[in-house]
């Protein structure tokens, strides 16, 4: 019973977070897709009041782009395995060897 309650609480907390994130995404999307500067400023103000400066305007740049980039990275990271640095070094060496066999032709710049 305790386990069930804990599970339910976790599920409710996760749902609340997901719901809030959806609302934030909607607000951010409105900001990004707006073409009228006036409309954007109004919407930006509303979003700021709703979610706070940190969520809407990242300190590194306007429009929450940093936050958006992080979400994209997180999404793609889910389908990529951890980087195998030894394999990476191996293929870097192999690639360098392949390129070392290339013939380089210098171009003459026309001034």
């Amino acid at each position: 019973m305790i386990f069930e309650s804990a599970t339910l609480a976790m599920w409710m907390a996760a749902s609340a977070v997901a719901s809030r994130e959806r609302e934030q995404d909607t607000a951010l999307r409105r900001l990004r897709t707006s073409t009228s500067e006036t409309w954007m400023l109004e919407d930006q103000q509303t979003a700021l009041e709703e979610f706070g400066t940190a969520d809407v305007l990242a300190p590194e740049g306007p429009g929450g782009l940093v936050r958006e980039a992080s979400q994209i990275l997180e999404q793609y990271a889910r389908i990529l395995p951890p980087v195998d640095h030894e394999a990476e070094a191996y293929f870097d060496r192999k690639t360098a060897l392949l390129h070392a066999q290339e013939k380089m032709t210098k171009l003459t710049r026309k001034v």
Partner: protein
Amino acid sequence: MAWDPTTDRWPPIYDAEELARTINDLTRSGRLEKEFWLRQADHSFLCQGDLLRLRSGAPVIASDGEPGVAGDYSEWLVLGNTCDLSRPVHEVEWSQVVPVLKLKTSGIPTTRLDALRTYAVVRQFFLPAWDGDADETAYADLTRVVTIHKSTLEGRAHTAIRMSIHGWVMLHACLVRFLARDDGRHAA
């Protein structure tokens, strides 16, 4: 209705989670290679992720800072965005490609090959076999991006094969990781 990569323009955004899960499952099951390419596609237009046949060297700025042409490649992977490719040349004149390199599969240790095939390396993008020698392992060298005039893509270059939605999203994931991976400069 399911997204049809041969006729529909974009996969629905709300399926992003499911798409990621599908690709993850395909990679873990070892089936991604079979699902990577479209066996039938309309090659009258170009898309990001297309594999091109074009004999050319790669223009580079050499170690002495002077321009040069390196290598002699016959296959390239299109990195340029499909929207830019679909625009008329007078609006968007250039696109981007990277050369495809090949190694003898028999000469690669199994653990290294597995890492390449499961996209556990950053600078090389594994390309499952589409034809040719079974003892060859192909990958796109993401470090050698070349700018290409779109008139060439419409004339001399020929599309060999097109990626499926699974291959295309994997390319996106690897491109983002290649260009936007954490460099640690802001680590606490």
